[in-house]
Each structure stands twice: as structure tokens, then as C-alpha cells.
């Protein structure tokens, strides 16, 4: 046990008190915050575990792709070595606020190793005017939210003016 003078002698006493204070602060914060993190991690684990398989797989895309079927249909229909183009009409109102800006980016992640191109025979259409892709355009899948997957057998086309990549 240290004497009281050991804690008060100048200049080392206040420094000793400072060390004890800082270690005690860290220890007290640990004691106070510890149960919260345990609880939080448990809650998050339960939420992750309760998720549907597809919700977990699409994850960050759930707020972007408007319809989970679209990404899986694209993956099933577009060959792994093919190129594709994601076209989204500028007035497309499906999805949410992230859809316009991040849709193509999410498809790029999800469809790899398929390659995104400005012009391609495979087109993922969000709110497009399909007639613009010509009479050869074959709609291979059409989902809710005005989403289609189109193949143009005759070859790549220039994307419509109202579309963007």
C-alpha cells in the first residue's frame, strides 16, 4: 500500500495520479460498454441468421435492383463469357433513390465475369422502350417493375438516348 505522500509529492505524484486516472477511465469505459457490444453482436447474428438466402446473397443490392429476380435472371440467361449492357431510362421510377446511379455498378459486381459494355448483344432493361432495340430483339425475361432482359441476336446495338450506363 502506498502512502498518501507518494501520490502527492511534486512532480511525480500528480503524474502517478494521471496514469491511474487514464487506466481507470479506459477500464470503466470497458466495463460500461462491454455488455452493449455483446448484445449488439448477438442481435446482429440473429438478424443475419433469420435472413432469407436470397436477401443475404443480394445484400447491398436489395436497395438498388428493384427486383431480386432481375439479377438472377440476368445471371442465368447471359452466358458467362458474354458482354452485356445495363440500360436504365432516365425517367425510370422503380427501385429507390440509389437505383439510377448505382444499378450498373451493382450488376457489374453481381454478373462477373460477364463484361459490361456500352454496346452489347445482351441488354438488361430498366424502363426501356424495347422497340428501340429493333425487330430482332428477343425479350427472354420480363419481370415486375418494368424490367426486361433482352437479347439482340443480330449483334450489338447503340443504346437508346434515354438510357444510360
Amino acid at each position, binding site marked *: 500500500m502506498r502512502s498518501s505522500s507518494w501520490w502527492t509529492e511534486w512532480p511525480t505524484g500528480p503524474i*502517478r495520479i494521471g496514469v491511474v486516472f487514464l*487506466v481507470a477511465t479506459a477500464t470503466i469505459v470497458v466495463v460500461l460498454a462491454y455488455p452493449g457490444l455483446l448484445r449488439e*453482436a448477438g442481435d446482429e447474428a440473429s438478424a443475419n441468421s433469420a435472413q432469407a438466402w436470397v436477401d443475404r446473397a443480394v445484400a447491398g443490392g436489395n436497395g438498388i435492383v428493384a427486383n431480386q429476380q432481375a439479377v438472377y435472371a440476368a445471371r442465368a440467361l447471359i452466358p458467362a463469357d458474354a458482354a452485356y449492357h445495363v440500360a436504365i431510362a432516365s425517367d425510370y421510377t422503380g427501385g429507390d433513390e440509389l437505383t439510377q446511379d448505382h444499378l450498373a455498378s451493382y450488376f457489374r459486381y453481381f454478373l462477373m465475369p460477364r463484361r459490361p459494355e456500352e454496346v452489347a448483344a445482351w441488354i438488361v432493361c430498366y424502363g426501356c422502350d424495347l422497340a428501340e432495340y429493333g425487330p430482332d430483339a428477343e425479350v427472354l425475361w420480363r419481370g415486375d417493375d418494368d424490367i426486361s432482359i433482352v437479347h439482340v441476336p443480330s449483334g450489338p446495338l447503340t443504346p437508346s438516348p434515354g438510357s444510360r450506363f
Partner: protein
Amino acid sequence: MRGVSDWIDALRLLGLAYVAGAVVTGSIWTLLLIAGAPFSFGLVLGLPVVLTAAFAVAGRTRRRSLPRGGRLEGGSQLVVTAIGIAASGLLLEALFRPARLSGLYEFDGWSFWVPKAKAIYELGGLDEQFFTTLPGAVYPPLVPTLDAAAFHAMGSADVVTLHVQYWLFGVGLVWALAGLLAERVPAWTLWPFIVLLLLAPRLGRRLQIAEADMFLDVVFVIASVLVLYWLLDRQRWRLVVATALLCGMVLTKREGLLLFAVLLVASLVASAREWRSAWPKLGVMTAVVAATAIPWRIWYVTHDVGGEGPADGFVQGDRFDLLGPAIRRVLDVLFDVGYWNVVVPVAVGAIALAALARVGRMAVFFGTLLALLVLGGIWATWVFSLTGEGYVVGGNFVIRFLGSAALLCVAASPLLLSAVWAKVGGTAAPSDARPRRLGLAAAIAVVPLLAYPVAAVAGGAPRFPTRDECSRPATTDAPDLEVVYGRFDDPRAADDLLAKLNAIGFIGAEIEFDACARWKVSYDAIESLEQGEALAAQVRDAGFDAQVEHDG
């Protein structure tokens, strides 16, 4: 290479060995990729084997023997160590649970870090199209390479299980840091800060995030501690391992270059009095790190990717109006307890006490390093900030960058406080005089680590979801019965089956996208198991598959 005297020493340094091994292996993989080598499973498996064999031969040549025996220091230190191991281990166990089944939600994760990893895994190298057009194209590919190696090990680009790799990096960080600091810090000072690391929201909760920030910070802080130790005791292995880690750091993110510069300057300042002996070795370290950094920079320059520096120059005269807001933003973030808890104020207090107690080199090193990190953060915030409506000065960048400063504070605080304590006469009693309490310490460390998983499992067995989990065979008391004719990855196959069933008179079936991302053809107007079995039998007689399931 260092040699370990006993098993306690080996156990203490195991975390450092893991982090160093991951960084060295990842760095060599990365350099091979840059050189154009295909990233095959053979390379993923072969390089660690070759490195292990090479280091074993080198250790043998240097007459390193296997560790023998080992004796734990007894007394209250041992009990506190046991409490610390239990507390941090329990948190790591808790963090493993959400990591195991976490989807890839992080924006930068799915936007470019993991796509780069998928490109390496799927296409076998640094595919020019993806690596020049993905966001963050200028970032070096070490972390995506480690991710791609994990994909090879898992057999698929499993972005959910990938989070476990990041959790393992977190375990490596905690272990390496605790093991290194334990050399100089008594247990009562060490463990509160190690646990605090896990509790700080932007540190502990982000260990399993599939991005490169935490990995960068981990490597930087461990390398910093090793460089400091080298400055203090000049054991050569410390500088060798630090150099290896810093090579990995400059292959991780562009901030790695800034962090290296900051660490180098702090090391030069802290060793100014012995510059004749220290600076040449720091020069060699710099040369090795630069040689490792250059190939990636050649790769992106030759592939027309924009540079890592600010587009308008390192000093931007037309942005001086942003300097004040940048300084405020950096200080606000640095002292925000919502991000780092009390880690930073405690470290600042520790530096102040160290200066008062004239602890010397350690205070100079950490003080300079922290000051330079803050200045670096201010500079980067000033020159890189996007401006205009909707933008916050520094944005998310400054929070990411200052993670390195906060993590450094976690390492600095216990080192400084224990050095101050020793300097002002608070030295503990000799360890041999104390009772050993080995049994008590073992119980304290092990029981909670075993009890937590048992308690978690008691609350419900862990799930191991697969894509087949949506197929649930019916039982007599199951709700929502249906007869399922098939599940398909391709929606056209589902359409075909439905058409065939309709053609032979099985009317009423529908196609539905199920929770396992397959198109399901089923008939759901089933009242009872018997009715369902009868319908399924008829469909099977007609040459199709059918099974009664429940949808509940």
C-alpha cells in the same frame, strides 16, 4: 527467423506471425499478379508451402531450434492476463457470429474491393477492363488478392463466408498487438486498451468489413510498434518484420504511401540523436518498401489509370477557404467518441504525461506520429474533398483515414502509460515473490470462452444455410402445403415445365421466385398431406418430378 525461446514466447508471437505471414504471402502474390502470373489454385497453395519451407530452411541454417518448455509469470499479473484474454476472446467470439452470415452490404465492398477479387478469381489475373474501370482503380490489389485466395480455398466466390477472413484478420490484430505490447506493458495497463479496441465502434465493429481500411490500419500500427521497439532495443528482426509489413501496406491502399511517409519521418525524428547508426537502416527499409511499391505504380501508369495524388496538385492555392473547415473536420472526427470511444483523448493524455515524465523517445515517436497523422488527414481532407451542395468536407474519407490514428492511440496509450509508471517509481514487486495461481488463471481464461458458445447454442442451434433450404418436405401438421414440381436457376426452364404440365392437364400451377433465388413451379391449393401426396403421385406417373412441401 527470430527464433523463439519457449512455448509461452511462441504463443505470444503467434498473432504477429499470422499477420506477417498473411502480408508477406499476399504481397508476393500481388507482385506476381502485377508481373502477369496467372492466379491459380496451384499458386494459392504452392506459395505458402514454398515460403514455409524456405523459412524453415533459413531458420535451420541460422540454428534456430524449436521452442522448449516455458514458464508463466505468476501473481496478479497472470490473473489480469487471464481476465484480459477471456474478455477480448469473448468479444471476438461474439463478433464471429454476425460475421459468419453477413451479406456484402458495404458500398465500397461490392462496388470495387470484392469485384476486383472476383475478377482475379474468375479471370486469373489483373483483367485490364475491370482493373482500369472499377472505382478505386488506382488502389493496389493486395486485399483483393487475399480475397481471391480465400475464394480459391472455399471453391467459390462466397462473399458471405469471406467476412470470416476479415474476422480472422481482426483476431490476428488483437493477438499480435497484445503479444507485442505484453513485452513492455504490465497486464493491468495492457488489457483495458486491448478490449477498448474491440469496443470502439469504428474499430471493433468494422473488423469484419470486406474493405481494405482496417487491414491497412492493422498493418500500419503493428509495423509502427515494431519500428519503435527497434529504435529502443535495435533487435534486427523487428525492423525486418516491420519492413515486410510496410511493403504490404503500400500494396494495400494509396493512403499506405502517406502512412509510410508519416512513420518514416516519426522514426527519423525519434532516432535523431543516433542518426549515424539508425538512419542508414531506415534508408534500407525505405528502399525496400519503395521497390515493392513501384511495380503497381508502373502497372497503373502503363494502363492509363489516373494517379494517386490530387488531380490539381499537392498544394491548391484556390482552395485555401477549405483549410479551416478541413482542420475542424479532422479534429471533430478524431475526438468523436461515437467513432473511437475514449481512445484518442486517453492517448493524448498519455502523451502529455509521458512528456511531463520525460519518458523520451517513446513520447517523441508517438507524439510526432500522431501529429503527422493529423496533419496528413488535414492535408488529404483539404486537397481531396469534393465540394458543392450535398458534400461534407472530408466526407467519409477522413473517418477512414483517421482509423489509423485511433488504432495507433490504442497501441500508444498502454506503452506510454507503463513507461511513465516505471519512470515515476511505480514498479511492481518481483514476480517470483508472488503465488503463481496457474489454475485460477486457466479457469478464468477458458471457462468464459467455452461458456459463451454453449450459451449461444442453447438459445438455438447455429444455422448453416444452403441454397436447398427452401425445399421443406411436408409433414402432417405442417402449414401452407404445396406440391412442388421443380426449382430452376433459369426462368425459361420453369416456363417450359409449366407449359408441359398445363398441356397434359395439370392446371393451376404457378411460377414463383423463392427465397433461395430459384424459380419454383408449384401448386399450392392443397388442403391436406393426403391430397398433396395423391396429386404428386399422379404427376410422377406422368413422368415429372413432384414433392409435397410446406411453405411455412
